[in-house]
């Protein structure tokens, strides 16, 4: 608005608080993080410039690659677990019936819980002494299956993945539900006039119309799952023997447990670049698929 042009003072002082907080606590740290990646530093003494050596070390660090693979696994499990289940739930709950509202509320509950609560709750449920799972297995005479679920190399990671799906599926259900509700009534009416069966309507009409939402959800899901830290940190701290290590938990232990700030920052930078790269790749991939449809 032109009338506001005169109010430079308001413009300046009005945007100052937002810009200052944002720059000091978000933008500046990102660039600082990029800088520290090129240094060897224990957080106290003077940082020593070592060029790309941190990044070369990362490339040869087996624990980093383990955490990288786990991170990719979490992304894949999230995209191919949370989204399809969320979509199925949304399709099933789209038209209301007795109890549909209750189901919706129930599936969304984990989203309002703190990840720490989710992690501690599932750790307790799976705990070998007090947990329900082993008590149940023993009760039905399958005590030989009772394991130390989070302490076992074979089961820890699958369980973490399962809990991640449990936690976030409700979000995608809700997103797909609102997308389904946005499909114009006329389309449904046209289908029933033409005698299109429910199933082919779903495949040929509803799903293509949902595609933009699916696309947005994939990006959201990648961004979200690249961030996972809390759940693994509280449930297993990356263990046993790095079986559930993620890049973020590895970065944490390198930085705050063994004080390799430079190395930790280098890992931070890798996380940052990877998640942006994956988001862009995800978007590009989905766009091409849309053209085919």
């Amino acid at each position, binding site marked *: *608005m*032109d*009338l*506001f*042009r005169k*109010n430079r003072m308001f*413009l300046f002082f*009005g*945007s100052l*608080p*937002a810009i200052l*907080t*944002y720059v*000091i*606590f*978000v933008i500046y740290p*990102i660039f*600082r*993080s990029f800088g*520290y990646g090129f240094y060897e530093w224990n957080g106290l003494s003077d940082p020593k410039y070592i060029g790309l050596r941190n990044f070369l070390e990362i490339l040869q660090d087996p624990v980093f690659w383990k955490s990288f693979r786990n991170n990719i696994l979490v992304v894949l499990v999230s995209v191919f677990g949370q989204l399809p289940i969320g979509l199925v*739930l949304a399709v099933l*709950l789209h038209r209301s*019936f*007795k109890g549909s509202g*209750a*189901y919706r*509320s*129930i599936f969304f*509950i984990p989203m309002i*819980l*703190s990840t*720490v*609560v989710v992690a*501690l*709750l599932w750790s*307790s449920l799976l*705990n070998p002494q007090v*947990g*329900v799972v082993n*008590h*149940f297995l023993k*009760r039905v005479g399958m005590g030989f299956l009772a394991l130390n679920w989070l302490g076992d190399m074979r089961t820890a990671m699958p369980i973490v993945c399962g809990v991640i799906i449990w936690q976030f599926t409700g*979000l995608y259900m809700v*997103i797909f539900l*609102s997308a389904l509700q946005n499909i114009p009534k006329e389309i449904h009416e046209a289908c029933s006039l033409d005698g299109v069966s429910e199933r082919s309507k779903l495949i040929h009409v509803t799903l293509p119309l949902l595609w933009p939402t699916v696309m947005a*959800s994939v990006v*959201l899901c990648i961004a979200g799952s690249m*961030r996972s*830290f*809390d759940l693994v*940190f509280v449930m297993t701290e990356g263990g046993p023997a790095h079986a559930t290590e993620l890049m*973020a938990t590895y*970065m*944490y232990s390198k*930085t705050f447990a063994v004080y390799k*700030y430079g190395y930790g*920052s280098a890992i*931070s930078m890798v996380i940052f670049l990877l*998640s942006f790269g994956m*988001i862009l790749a995800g978007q590009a991939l989905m766009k091409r698929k849309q053209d085919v449809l």
Partner: protein
Amino acid sequence: MKRWVRVGIRHLFLFPFATLYVFPLFWMVMTSIKTNQEILFGSFAFPKQIHWQNYLEAWETANMRVYFLNSIVVTAVSILLTVLVSSLMSFILAKFRFRLRNALYSLFIIGMLVPLQSILVPLFLQMRALHLLDSRWSLILSYTAFGLPVAIFILESFVRVFPDEILEAGILDGCSPLRIFLQIILPMSRPAVASVIILSFLNNWKEFAFALIFISEETKKTLPLGLYNFLGTETNNYAGLMAALVIATVPVFIMYVFLQEQVIKGMTAGAVKG
């Protein structure tokens, strides 16, 4: 197919799945009123008598009272700051024309994609340099800063569609931009502000990673951090832990029960960001 058959099939699929969601929460509440002895002997069984003691112990002995108050203070102050700072910025971005407007807007929006973990280390160093470690301000300021992108995204798109005529009328009446903001823009954006408040409340109440690296003093810890340390001090006190989890969850749960539609709307508005 008859309608009741279709509905029946849905229940057949949905009911077991819902059990997977309800049972853990039910178990959490049930375990929180048992004794630790009872849990060891039967993880499934109902308590012989309700054991409220766990709540009292968690609240007093295990410091939940302190964590709870800290969470309330940190959450409330950062919501207030987020709303004030972001609504002012959104008003300017939506209704003022200036050279760097688009660049500024993009800068804020990109912030929504920044993985929080990628800046934990530098932010920690930043807080240390500012002498804010072990201070509630470290949490309040970082929650506010990280809440800005989503808040600005929600508010800016809301304010942008307000007709300019209303603002012009205000200007002709001699209102200053600040008065226009306080008396016209803010009251009109109430639904969007409500979404921002709900979203920041949930995010800040649940937040763990920042608290973990900024706070080590017992008296400054928020709920998620306190819960994380619970078993460290109260070894094997699972009944107490469950009581503590219930205490931490009650506020968000109450909000969810009463404001379910708004909560879901706020969270999806924060999630689907373009």
